[in-house]
């Protein structure tokens, strides 16, 4: 009888200790989750800013201006365009 009681007491103590550790573990992981979520949000914001920046730099108006004014590019006149027909199935 006493032996069983002692055994149960041991189990009880173990359970109690594991509760404490798992509780601690849960809080620790929660803090980590928290941090990662904040980071995900941060990245989300950064992605928005970067896509905004990409879009702004790549505005067709800006590209055209640079092509025309700095690189002195111009559209070819029809006389300077040759259309080459590649037969279907020819090398890519």
């Amino acid at each position: 009888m006493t032996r069983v009681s002692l055994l149960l007491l041991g189990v009880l103590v173990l359970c109690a200790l594991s509760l404490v550790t798992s509780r601690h573990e849960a809080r620790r992981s929660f803090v980590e989750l928290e941090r990662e979520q904040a980071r995900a949000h941060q990245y989300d914001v950064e992605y928005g800013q970067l896509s905004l920046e990409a879009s702004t730099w790549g505005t067709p108006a800006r590209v055209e201006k640079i092509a025309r004014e700095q690189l002195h590019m111009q559209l070819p006149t029809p006389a300077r365009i040759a259309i080459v027909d590649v037969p279907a199935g020819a090398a890519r």
Partner: protein
Amino acid sequence: MSAAAMGRARAGRKAPVAELPRLRALMVFGGLALLFVVLLLRSLDLQWLENGFLQGQGAARFSRELELPAHRGRIVDRNGTALAVSTPVKSLWVFPDKVEATPGQLKELAHVLEAAPRALATRLHGADEFTYLARRLSPDTAQRAMAIGIKGLNEQNEYRRYYPDGDVTAQIIGFTGDRDRGQEGIELSQQAWLGGTPGSRRVIIDRRGEAVEDVAAIRAPQAGRDLALSIDSRIQYLAFRELKAAVDRSKAKAGSIVVIDARTGEILALANLPTYNPNSRDKVTRNRMRNRALTDTFEPGSVMKPFTIAAALEAHKITPDTVIHTEAGQMTIGPNTIHDAHRAGPLTVAQVIQKSSNVGAAKIALSLPAKTMWNMFTEAGFGTPPQTGFPGEAGGRLRAPNTWRPIEQATMAYGHGLSVTLVQLARAYTIFADGGELKPVELLKTDGPVAGVPVIKPETAREIRHMLELVVQPGGTAPEAQVPGYRVGGKTGTARKVAGGAYERKYVADFVGIAPMSNPRLIVAVMIDEPSTGDYYGGSVAGPVFSNVVGAALRMMNVPTDAPVDNVLLPAKDGGVKEES
């Protein structure tokens, strides 16, 4: 041990202890009891009377309600290029009477905020209620301002929406107002999809102020979803640029252009002038914000003729080669007379379209019952809004056929006495482009083929396409609309505007075209409102816009050419055909 001995022993031990006087014992007992009563009352007080307050105070020390921000979805074009993006910004606010700052700190703040020190001082001393010192700063700037360490200076998170393409896409996308809620355009109509709902959560914090555990009842934030439009920002820019060039050239009051994918009905570009910059719209009038192509109706003029001809072809009243006598360019119906811009003599049906003869179209129309024409116009989508979901889209005006007088039926044949929007017009031309089906018009990106509603027979569509191609040939009304390398076709319109019930000498020049003819991919509709340089013909004002946009857009879309690049044939000087209506 005997009882007597025990008695003795007790008495013996007891003897030296002085017996407490009865009164004193009672007093001590009473005092102690009183203390217990006090304790009991106090605990009652804590447990019941002040329980709520205390629990609240306790919670305030270890639990926090955190707001979870939800940001608005982005709007992107069909290729994923951002058209509208929200990014977090910060605003600085103060209660002026709570601010403690040295003059040096204020100077530094003014420097960081790039504000005049005096203006800043006025703001700080002007009012004694909540005041914004600066709104919508970049997070960097706000951080530097906060780093100065002025007591009483607070920051607040906000979102600001940016539109990288600015005035090019302004009227389609619209803009957001207070709290980043949609106020115009797609931003308004798609508010439910784009807008997020901020969430909140209650957490337990540890002594370092870090959240360690969620307490129940989390309201998850609903972030706004991204939205892909059918717009292609490159074609959009192209359309905008060419429209602007044409409006400037003809000194017009306004203009619109719509580019539709002939296969899916998606709007690839839609631009309006005048326009505005959605990123800074302090002094923008409603006039500039209107999406004219969807909300403004006008009398379209001759661009309606193909529908009249199609109705007659379907009713087997004519064939493309039937000869119509145009009566020396004049025709009298009751008290009214209608005119052609020039006399042409007898014309085939195809030439009625090519040379845009009003008399020819009127004669064909009068050979049909009003109901037949009305059916054709209605099935092509005129008179009902095109269901794009855009706020304020108009449906134009198409009266019931039983109210048509013969003169009205005649003028409707060439696009007067009814009104349409430019988007309706572009959409209606899908019946000629894709085997006779009317496609639903769509502002959002769609995947895969779209089922249309059959309106005319594919042969009729082909015959009309052939006539439209004649329009851009020498001898037609719009040789300016030709495109190097591609076979194209379209119809011009030059309509006089109505003001106060009478026609004025002010014009609308329009052109609706299809390209390439061998396998239609694009429909482009151009409308120039009140060209005022003397040249007001659809062919010469709106035609070049069509030509430039189609040429560049087809190249961009990698559509194979279906004609040699030297296919453009211009008529001899002054040999062109002009039209009016």
